[in-house]
């Protein structure tokens, strides 16, 4: 079970993680707990799978190009198609969704040529045409995901 301090540790440091010599000490001073406890709690939250990692989130428009794409595959081909799409290291997200277009994936690479080549290979191997849906404009204000309505950390 997560207590209020766990929730604050998860909620408040999705952005502006302290860029100082002792970031966990700094967090402890903000929350009124010892540095050791901050580290122990983060280790437990990581071991229990609540945290994927602590690190930089890259701006994909600055480090390369990427696009969302979708294809429609019959039910009998879902498993083999999942493996085929996942095998590309350029694919960083791949979701199965309940829709005629059932495979939704993001292809990211250093340039458009490589992104196009990966999509064309996936089209050829799956025998379908992909919907290619690059981002035209973002309306999203990146404040981190609001995990709880009630936490004092908001």
């Amino acid at each position, binding site marked *: 079970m997560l207590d209020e301090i766990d929730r604050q540790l998860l909620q408040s440091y999705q952005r502006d993680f302290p860029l100082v010599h002792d970031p966990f000490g700094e967090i402890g001073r903000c929350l009124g707990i010892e540095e050791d406890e901050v580290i122990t709690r983060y280790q437990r939250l990581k071991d229990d799978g609540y945290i994927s990692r602590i690190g930089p*989130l890259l701006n994909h428009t600055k480090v390369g190009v990427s696009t969302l794409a979708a294809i429609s595959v019959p039910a009998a081909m879902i498993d083999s198609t999942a493996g085929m799409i996942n095998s590309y290291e350029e694919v*960083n997200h791949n979701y199965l969704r309940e829709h005629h277009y059932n495979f939704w994936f993001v292809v990211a690479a250093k340039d458009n040529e490589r992104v196009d080549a990966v999509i064309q290979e996936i089209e050829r191997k799956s025998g379908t045409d992909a919907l290619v849906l690059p981002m035209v404009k973002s309306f999203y204000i990146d404040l981190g995901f609001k995990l709880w309505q009630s936490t004092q950390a908001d």
Partner: protein
Amino acid sequence: MVTDQDIIRIMQAGLPLCPEPYASIAASLELDEAELLRRIDAMLRQGTIRRIGLVPNHYRIGYRYNAMTVWALDEDRIDAVGELFGAQASVSHCYKRPSYPPGWPYNLFAMVHGRGLDEINDKIAALKKLIGDDCRQSDVLFSEKILKKTGIRLKNRSSEHA
């Protein structure tokens, strides 16, 4: 010469959970800690790094459902609706994307997360109500299975030349 890419590569493995994590990263790059902090700060200012923070596992925390909501809007209404949706706490991402009518008429995408189907349906109903007549057509694509989710990473050196 330590490049920004070298710094990003080592950091994206995850900050070590020790009292002086930046000093530990700096040491492995043979950089000064102060220099490392300055370089990270510069990348944040330039926008190469969007933010530094923990990446929560939404699914583990209880957000078992995510819905990709898609909306067909008149071109001149996309910006207003996009900004409205983007400002909602229920929306984690909101993007304008190309449409391919008639098969795919949707040009605005908004991701909604929820701990249960009721919660997610309530959030979607609230979005619909917000925009009223602006929407000609919309659809909701629930996630059935996460097949892969690794985040955006720079490749490792070893695979870069592959």
